[in-house]
């Protein structure tokens, strides 16, 4: 079995190049607004470190240093939870079935993070991350062949091109507001419980993409820290089960 890819230099096809372009523009806009890029790669830690050093210490003189940190603790979800603030970026280099990354990506909208997911093999479901940058190959050796390195190198290179277009950085992605965002008004916003109510009829402190707020959780009964809930009009209206299935108990 030969290992080299020989499809006319086709490491990046048209679809992937468009995905990379869109991701880079979002990345540049978020950095422009003060984001930090958090990187997790539980299966392949060195990739997380490579992304971070790429942004922090550019190999091309004169390119600005950007804040990026590899999160490589044994529990990357806990580490990302405490690190991430609304407006930040969360990038994973992982297969679609890596449990910690599935979990982090699921929670990222409650943390207010824009997400990017680099990987290979079966794709994550559509919408699992804001940007899915994928190598469509089932070869388990892909992570060691430089394909991911190429991917985040390109992401870095394109992001810095965007900085040369200051006008387009201002046209930032429109943030959801409760009143106008169809997703928010119909479905509720994803929230993560920070602390349960002090008394049975009190309010829980919950973080959403907008920050922290006190929310009525009486509909749900007891809630515990890190529970995922849907918040609508100051009330938690549903609980998302831990097992990634949406089950009401």
């Amino acid at each position, binding site marked *: 079995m030969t290992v080299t890819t020989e499809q006319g230099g086709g490491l990046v096809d048209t679809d992937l190049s468009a995905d990379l372009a869109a991701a880079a*523009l979002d990345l540049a806009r978020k950095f422009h607004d003060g984001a930090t890029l958090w990187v997790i790669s539980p299966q392949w830690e060195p990739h997380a470190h490579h992304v971070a050093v790429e942004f922090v210490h550019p*190999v091309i003189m004169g390119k600005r240093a950007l804040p990026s940190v590899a999160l490589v603790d044994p529990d990357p979800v806990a580490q990302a939870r405490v690190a991430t603030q609304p407006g930040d970026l969360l990038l994973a280099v992982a297969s679609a079935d890596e449990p910690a990354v599935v979990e982090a990506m699921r929670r990222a909208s409650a943390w207010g993070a824009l997400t990017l997911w680099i990987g290979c093999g079966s794709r994550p479901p559509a919408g699992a991350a804001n940007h899915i940058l994928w190598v469509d190959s089932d070869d*388990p*050796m892909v992570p*060691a062949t430089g394909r991911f390195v190429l991917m985040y190198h390109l992401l870095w*290179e394109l992001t810095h091109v965007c900085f040369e277009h200051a006008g387009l950085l201002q046209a930032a992605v429109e943030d959801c507001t409760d009143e106008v965002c169809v997703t928010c008004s119909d479905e509720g916003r994803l929230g993560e419980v920070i602390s349960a109510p002090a008394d049975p009829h009190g309010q829980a402190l919950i973080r959403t993409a907008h920050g922290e707020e006190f929310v009525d959780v009486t509909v749900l009964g007891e809630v515990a820290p890190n529970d995922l809930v849907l918040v609508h009009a100051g009330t938690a209206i549903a609980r998302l089960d831990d097992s990634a299935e949406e089950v009401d108990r």
Partner: protein
Amino acid sequence: MTALGPKGVESTGFLYPFIDAEETDATSLLDDLAASARGKASESARLQRESLDEYEPVLIAAGIEMADRFLRGGRLYTLGNGGSSTDAATLASLFSRPARGRAVAAWSLAADEAVVTALGNDVGFDLIFKRQIIAHARDRDIAVALSTSGNSEDLMAAITEANRRGLLTIGFSGHDGGRMAVAEDLDHCFTVHSQSIHRIQESHAVLGYRLWSVAQEHMSRPRNGAHNS
């Protein structure tokens, strides 16, 4: 066919400068970015193919030498700075934790921050790898150093020490090869001929993967005397 497109945009852009600046440019930037990504990827693929072709006989020889050392209980140390230290770590885990094939002992000498900062602080950054080679190395071991310039002092000091101690020494370099290309302490040097650090690192990965493949193939062969010829 593309000649007419920009022309048309130009003429309408002249009539509607505001629209052109606020709307069309985001699209055209995205198109430019996508085209740039494909161009850089093609260049990366070309460089990878050329590097593999140029060094195929040496990659086979070096991979077999590595396999022989692994079969004698040798272990692999990988070395690099910055992004290359992460590529060194990826290479080490390819050998020690492969998705398929036989796992062998390998680790990156930049991986332990206690050791790296202790040595950097106490004896100087240039010696962070050399001192570890002195501590760890046996004559059946292997050292692989990755540097896009081929000039890193900490790597060169470690390579000299490794060579002195009988290790198999392999260098991955870039640009014109730098000091690595002319170092007598290196048994094999793979120079990726490019001016781009990014493209060099991508080729380093594929060259490292080829070394691993050769070593795996050689280690899986039957080894009783009858098969040696």
